């Protein structure tokens, strides 16, 4: 498979508030996790440090197009942000009301990598990738896509997109610029 060689990759740290804002389109109506409480950073790949100009946001706009889907994606994001305030975020997720499982795995450059999915219900998904090594001294999770499944299996285009994106992240790991939310 053809893989682009990224020279510099820009990523944005997504606070809980910003992540919810990408989905909700309404004022936040619940408690939020502060970035300072997060043991893991939640990141998305962006252009020009704008979270609205990202593949993740575009996937939300395209696939999460009604109130019911948005409410489920918000629930998944809430459980994720609650979980990443602990070192063992997978342990925290395993007790939550959201299922977390491997959606796709692949080998690349002598390493084995996994795309994970958060399942708030049978249809809606958030695909993510926990970076195996720390980024800027912090553990990091990349949000890849939001999706509303129509089939039982994870679609090939989702697997391919996530795999290609993860390869780009791994290739760019020494050349990643982090857009940080101003305080």
């Amino acid at each position, binding site marked *: 498979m053809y893989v682009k060689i990224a020279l510099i990759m820009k990523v944005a740290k997504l606070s809980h508030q910003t992540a919810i804002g990408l989905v909700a389109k309404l004022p936040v109506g619940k*408690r939020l996790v502060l970035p300072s409480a997060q043991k893991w950073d939640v990141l998305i790949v962006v252009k020009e440090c704008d979270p609205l100009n990202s593949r993740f946001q575009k996937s939300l706009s395209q696939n999460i197009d009604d109130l019911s889907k948005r409410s489920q994606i*918000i629930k998944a994001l809430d459980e994720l942000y609650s979980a990443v305030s602990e070192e063992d975020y997978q342990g*925290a997720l395993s007790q939550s009301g959201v299922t977390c499982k491997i959606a796709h795995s692949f080998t690349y450059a002598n390493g084995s990598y996994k795309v994970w999915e958060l399942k708030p219900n049978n249809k809606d998904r958030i695909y993510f990738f926990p970076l195996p090594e720390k980024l800027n001294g912090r553990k990091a999770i990349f949000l890849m896509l939001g999706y509303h499944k129509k089939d039982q299996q994870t679609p090939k285009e989702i697997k391919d997109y996530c795999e290609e994106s993860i390869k780009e992240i791994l290739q760019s790991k020494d050349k990643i610029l982090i*857009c940080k939310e101003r305080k």
Partner: protein
Amino acid sequence: MTRENEIIAGQVAERKALWAPSRRAEPMQDVRRIMRKKEILNKDLAIRLGVTEAAVSRLIKGSQNIQIDTLYMLADALEESLTINIGSDSSEYTYAFDDADSNCVEYDSVFSEEESNVVQLNCYRKSTAPKYNSFELECA
């Protein structure tokens, strides 16, 4: 006033549809965190509440619309305080949970122009919330 009530009724319904699943999960996230911290198992909580372990498992998943009585029983079973706070004067709070080093896991709630509607199982303190959607670049 009638017109205003109708508008607000629409907003209430829309906000319920959007936020209900995550609002239901919110107090159960606290419950699960406290259980892990205090090493309380589902079967312990079941005995303390006088219900089955399966009922506890369903309860703490956070999908149910639980009663206020049940919420207080959960707090009592965990030997924690519970505060239900509607219409606070302050627009911004940070919620904090004591861990082993008394460093709190912080939570922030921004209800600017909205009434606060908060259930918590532990302490809180004021903080400044980050501004929305404002980014700067830092090098990795």
